Every structure is written in structure tokens, then in C-alpha cells.
């Protein structure tokens, strides 16, 4: 193994031997993108590389870009390294990026989730020497229930509201979370979508992801006829004039942060469903173990305690600084 690291982590994640960055936040020449969320796929790079499945949403969000696609598991030689993309289970098209130089393997996890959600390509552990892991929820208080249970409680809530003559509005990030809820609820009743959600849903449908039918909320829609339906909208739409068109509503948020009562109350919401597209504490620990890596860098979220815990477990652990020094609750979901 050479002395120089395969990836440098001072100014974002950079590969000197390949001349590319991974999820850079400043404009660069060549950007490898793990997935389409805006804090990972940013505007202004000269060339982009992402999975075929991730590209349509990235293009929709960034407009005219010079981008090429790669299949999961396909190897590509870039400069002195070989890269490949592997499912991260976070959102449709999301990937971990593996970088190999003369047998030394580094993996950048991007955002990931262990549990198969029936929509995103299921997370697969990749063996490596050095693992760069997100740790958005890197504290032991974050433990997710199985998806079937959470979807069950959403369905119960929706039904109770419908019986009381109310429409249910659920706040969920418009790419990923919204479609996961759609797919998890199946065809349990009429589901309405906010325009921002529907745009992305439509792109994913065209790509062949199986998603139930939805009704786009547009100015001409007869909302009275939809009483008792479920509406999926971006979190920012909750409690605004936008939801008033549905008459009497119950609102809830779907996010991993809803695991904490304090944050639920801060949003002024009684109801919160704990649905996260990130790994929980147990997920992070098992994923890191499965890589077999001895060296681990953590990024996003509770990096300080998580790094310390990893060190105590015998890992050679460090922190990758992000643009903001660290993430705040509710930014990353």
C-alpha cells in the first residue's frame, strides 16, 4: 500500500489519483454523486457521474448538466483508480462509491439505510479497508421500528381521521421519503400529492419504479370530493395556506427526528411518524462491522460522540468535516 491516502478529506472528499471529488459542495471539474438529494448533488460541476437510476432526478433538479451514468456493480477506470457504485438503500438510485487503488479499497457510503423498503435498491455491504460513513443518527437513542409497523400506524391514523371526516396531510421530503410512504401504503385509498412530490414521483414511475396511483393537487382539483384522503406534501407545506384547501385536516411529519418528543413539539405537531431513510444506531454499527474496515471516517450528524465510540471499539476513527462543521437536526432529512 502506498503512503498517500486513496481519498483526501480536508476540502471535501477528493481522489488525487483519479482527479475526481465525491459529493463536492463547491464547483469542481469531475463530481461523482452518491444520490440526488440537494446536499449531495449540487449545481455547478463540469462533469457528473452517478448511477443510471439516480440521473433522471438529478437532471430534473439541476437542469442542463454534462452527466454520465453507471450501472450498479460496474467497474470504471478513472486515472489511477477503479471505481464502482453499490446500492445504499437510501433513496432510489442511491449508491455507495467504492474506490480501489492497487488492492487498497475505500468506500464512501453517502447516505444509507439498512432495511429494505421495497422501493430503493437494497443496501449491500461492501468489504473495504477504509469506510467513510454518514452518521446522521449516530446516537443510541435512534432505533427504528420495522417499516411494516410504521406503515401500519400511518394507515391507522389515516383511517381514524377519515372516519372523523378529516383529511390527513403527511409531511415528507419530496424525493425518497414521499415515494417510500406511497409504496409502503400501497393502494389503501386515494392519495393526493403536492406538485413537488408528484414531479419526482412521475420521473420515478417512468423509470419503472412501482408506485401506486396518485392525484396531483392542482388549483382545479375538487378537494371537497377528496375528504378523508391522504395528502403527501413537502414538510414546508404543513401548517400553511396550502393545506387549508382541504378543510379540516390532521397533519403529521414523517422523519427520523420524530423519534424525539422535543423536536416533534417544536414543530407544533402532535403526531410524528418515525420514518427515516438513514441507518439508525444499530444499522450504523452493523454496517460498519460488515465492511471489515479498520479505519473509519464519519460525517454528517453526531460525528464527535460516534467517532469516540468507534475508537473505544478499537477502530481507527476520524471525522470528515462538512461545509457546516456539522449538521443540525432536520437539515439532513
Amino acid at each position, binding site marked *: 500500500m502506498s503512503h498517500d491516502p486513496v481519498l483526501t478529506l480536508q476540502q471535501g472528499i477528493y481522489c488525487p489519483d483519479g482527479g475526481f471529488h465525491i459529493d463536492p459542495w463547491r464547483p469542481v471539474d469531475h463530481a461523482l454523486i452518491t444520490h440526488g438529494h440537494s446536499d449531495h448533488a449540487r449545481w455547478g460541476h463540469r462533469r457528473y457521474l452517478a448511477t443510471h437510476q439516480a440521473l433522471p432526478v438529478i437532471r430534473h433538479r439541476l437542469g442542463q448538466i454534462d452527466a454520465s451514468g453507471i450501472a450498479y456493480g460496474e467497474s470504471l477506470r478513472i486515472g489511477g483508480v477503479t471505481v464502482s457504485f453499490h446500492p445504499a438503500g437510501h433513496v432510489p438510485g442511491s449508491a455507495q462509491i467504492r474506490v480501489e487503488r492497487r488492492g487498497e479499497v475505500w468506500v464512501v457510503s453517502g447516505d444509507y439505510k439498512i432495511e429494505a423498503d421495497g422501493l430503493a435498491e437494497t443496501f449491500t455491504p461492501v468489504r473495504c479497508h477504509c469506510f467513510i460513513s454518514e452518521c446522521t443518527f449516530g*446516537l*443510541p*437513542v*435512534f*432505533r427504528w421500528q420495522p417499516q411494516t409497523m410504521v406503515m401500519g400506524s400511518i394507515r391507522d391514523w389515516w383511517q381514524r381521521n377519515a372516519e372523523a371526516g378529516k383529511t390527513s396531510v403527511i409531511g415528507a421530503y419530496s424525493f425518497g421519503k414521499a415515494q417510500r410512504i406511497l409504496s409502503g401504503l400501497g393502494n389503501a385509498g386515494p392519495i393526493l400529492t403536492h406538485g413537488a412530490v408528484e414531479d419526482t414521483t412521475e420521473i420515478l414511475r417512468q423509470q419503472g419504479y412501482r408506485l401506486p396511483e396518485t392525484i396531483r393537487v392542482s388549483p382545479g382539483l375538487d378537494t371537497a370530493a377528496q375528504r378523508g384522503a391522504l395528502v403527501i406534501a413537502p414538510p414546508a407545506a404543513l401548517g400553511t395556506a396550502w393545506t387549508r384547501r382541504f378543510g379540516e385536516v390532521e397533519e403529521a411529519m414523517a422523519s427520523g427526528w420524530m*423519534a*424525539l*418528543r*422535543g*423536536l416533534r*413539539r*417544536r414543530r*407544533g*405537531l*402532535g*403526531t410524528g411518524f418515525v420514518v427515516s431513510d438513514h441507518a439508525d444506531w444499530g444499522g450504523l454499527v452493523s454496517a460498519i462491522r460488515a465492511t471489515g474496515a479498520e479505519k473509519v471516517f464519519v460525517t454528517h450528524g*453526531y460525528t464527535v*460522540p460516534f467517532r*469516540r*465510540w468507534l475508537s*473505544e471499539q478499537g477502530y481507527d476513527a476520524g471525522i470528515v468535516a462538512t461545509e*457546516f*462543521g*456539522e449538521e*443540525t*437536526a432536520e437539515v439532513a432529512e
Partner: protein
Amino acid sequence: MNRFAALFATLDSTTKTSAKVTALADYFRSAPDEDRLWAIALLSGKRPRRSVSSTQLRVWAAEKASLPLWLFEESYAVVGDLAETIALILPVGTTSDPPALSALMGDLAALSGLSEDRRKAEILATWDRLGPMERLVFNKLITGGFRLGVSRGLVTRALAQSTGMDEGTLAHRLMGDWTPTSTSFDRFLGDQETRADTRPYPFALASGLEKPPEDLGDASQWTAEWKWDGIRGQLIHRDGLLALWSRGEELITDRFPEFALLSDFLPPGTALDGEVVVWDADAQLPMAFNALQKRIGRKSVTRRLLAEAPARFIAYDLLEAGGKDIRSTSLIERRARLETLVTALPATLPLGLSPPLAFDDWARLGQMRQTARQVRAEGVMIKQVQSPYHNGRKRGEWWKWKLDPWTVDAVMVYAQAGHGRRANLFTDFTFALRDGDELVPFTKAYSGLTDQEFGEITRWVQKNTLERFGPVRRVTPELVFEIGFEGIQESPRHKSGIALRFPRMIRWRKDKPPSEIDTLETLRGLLAQAQG
């Protein structure tokens, strides 16, 4: 227990008052007698005594979850609630077989008699029997931090709905120091006419006046008096027993032994509302609040303390006379009876009247308010002459018109994350003033800003941290705030030598650079003014 935990979950998951009342009323209708009596007690603020220390709980929970203690503490700092942190990190229990609420409360009471090992075994075993929501509630009960976003008014309304009884009667039943073990549900609701105990009445509360007093209309329909800076209390004399209740419904009779002799002078069946202050006999005025603080903090009162800080009860309302509840009569009538009663007593007693302020128009009252500090008052109280003595707060008839706070502009030097609803937001700040080239920290404050502003500051703190001391961050001295406070006094315990009363952020002075903040000298000037 599971029914009570479910009630807790429902109350916690709605912000709508009507939904809360319905959930409470349903519970009161359906729960067994012993359980609902406990529920009433817990919901109306009667917390069980803490039977285990929070340190023990942290250690046991971390051990049970196989986590190092420091990681538990980090988690606690983020969650901001000890009971919730424990509930979140414990491994899933082995059985789910929660005991009844009343049985659980009995077990908890028995804990304090056990050895530490037995206590630990009991608590670990109970955790094992409970689901996540029950664990949260149980932890809140053992940490003594059981609080819910339910006012006593809501509990009273729900009880009225479920029993068909009158709200006013129920509100009075809920007062005082009854315990679920000292009564039964039927007896609790049933003793309509007896006044055999010294139970206080619900305190009538005033709202802050935020509009000009002229908006209240004809000044002749209003009375005014000083807003004293002491502790609010009800002094009750019934059947030879004298009791002093604080607004928090704590019986504080024993802390003020000088009032004991009043039982020889007050007629039986008397309830007074007023302010407990420490009396400066020379000036014939109350002393500053810190003199009273010495008295509040201590259970045993020495002769020396009695001489140095003698207490006095300044009466402003009469709620019960001759054993009869007169709260529904008009304020002027109650006030007239109060004056007759108090002026007939020997002048040497530690009991006096809060004098009415004479004013013909609002402008005159405004001038008097400006002089409140001279009589060591916080402002004036304005009450409608016809008003009854309300149960709790009723807007429109009683107003407090406080003095504008003192203010200084200061720079933030330390930040710490908040708790509970404000977990993950930096909300607790330390501020400094300039002293030559140095910045001297002089106060902390954590209220007065909007959640949005706290969010903005939180992002700023993350980018501008210079140093970390556990949960505390030292930040670049750059953000300037106007700090308001109600009082100021010397304090050898503070680095600045000065302590403030009720400090809070009035606003974020984005318009001011840190070079323009006030100096320690300015603050010393205010101190001199307060002492003079």
C-alpha cells in the same frame, strides 16, 4: 398503567384543547377509582417524591443497554429529557405485563425503604415489564419530573364533564395537599360543605397589560395598588388552624413562624390573598427580593434570621369571611370588608393592607407607576371594581402593569443547547459586557427569542465555535443582544460582582457591532441607582 400511558400518549400527541379534554374525560369515566385518583393527583401537579437519584438511573440504564456512561450523557444532552433518554436506549423488554397505576405508585412509595441493590433490582425488573410509552411515563414518575402540557383548568373541565359536577367546586377540591392515599375517589369529590381543612382557593391571576391603560375605558371603574415584589400567598384561618399557602400550593406556614400569632387575632373562617415580603420597619417598606430569598430557602428559621429578615403579609383580597366563601361578590365589597378586618387588628401584627393608589385618570396612574421602584414595587396592579375573585386566569378584569425592564446591550460569549422542546437548538447563552479591553461575563439568558431566531443562532454557533467544554461552546464574541432584567443586586458569587433578576433577551441587535456594547461601568451605575 397501560391505560394511563395511552392517555399520556394521546395528550402528548395533540395540541388541541378539545381533544385533550375529551381524552381526559374518557379516562376519568373508565379508569378504576384508585387509578383515576392517582391520575388526578399526577395531572394536577402532585408529583411523587423522587425515590431514586438521577445518577443511579443513568448508570443503571447505561449498564442495561451495554453503553458507556459518557455516551448516555451525550444522548441525554441531545434528547433533553432524562426519562425519555432512558426509555429510548433500553433494550426491548422481555415481557409486557404492566401493573396498574395505583399498584405501581404503591411500589414506588415502598422503594425508598429498600437498600440500593433491591431498588435497582426492582427498577430493572419493572423496565423489563413495560413497553416504550409505559417506560417513558414510569421514568417520569421515578425521576419526579412528571409534567404534562395539561393545565389544571383542563383537568377540572374534564372532571366536570365526566362527573357532572360544577367546575368551581371541583377546582377547590383539587387544591391543597391531599394525597391519593389519604382519601378515596368518592370522598375526594363528595365533601362539598366541609371546610375542616385549610385548603386554599384557586389563585385569581392577572394578565400583563400590553396596551395603553386608556383602552380599559373609564378610570373610575378601576382600582390600583402596587405590584409587590414578594411571594403571593393565601393566609387561611379555619377551626383554630392557621395555614400559609404559596401560589405553587405548597404549605409554607412553618417557614414563617412570625405569622403563627395571627391565629389569635383573625376571626375563624378567614381566607386572605396577599403578598409575603420581608419588612423594613424603618422605611415602612418591603426589602428587596433577595432578603426574602433567604427566608424561602430555609426550612428551619433561626432567631437571628427572624430579626434580620422579618416577614410581613400584605393583604389585598378577602376570599372567605365568617367561614363563608365570598369570592363571587364584587371587588369593592371584598375590599371594604378586608379593610374593616385588618384595621381592627393591632398595628404591631405582621399583617397590613396593600394601600389603594388614588388616581383620577390614567395619566396620573402612569406617573405613579414610574415611581414604583421607590417603594420597591415592580409596577402596579389594575383591577376592575366589580370583578369577582376568579378561578385562575380570566383576561379582562385584572391586569399587571409592570415597569419597563432595565436593559443593557451585551455580547454572547457562550452557548449551550436547550432541553425538551428546544433540544438540538442553542438557546442558553452567556453574555458579557466590556470592562476596559476585557469581556466580563455577567449573566445568562435563555428566553425572549423566537424559534426561528434560535434556529438562525444555532447555525451561527456551529460555524463560530472557538472551544468546547462538554455541552458548552465558547463562541466568537460577535452577536449583540439587548438584555432586559427586573432587578439588580450585588453578588460576590458572580465574576462581575452583580446578579440580575429575570434576565432575558429583549431582542437581537443585528444593527449593533460588539464594539458598541455597554460596559460593566454602566451596569454598576444601574446598581447604584437601585440601591439609592
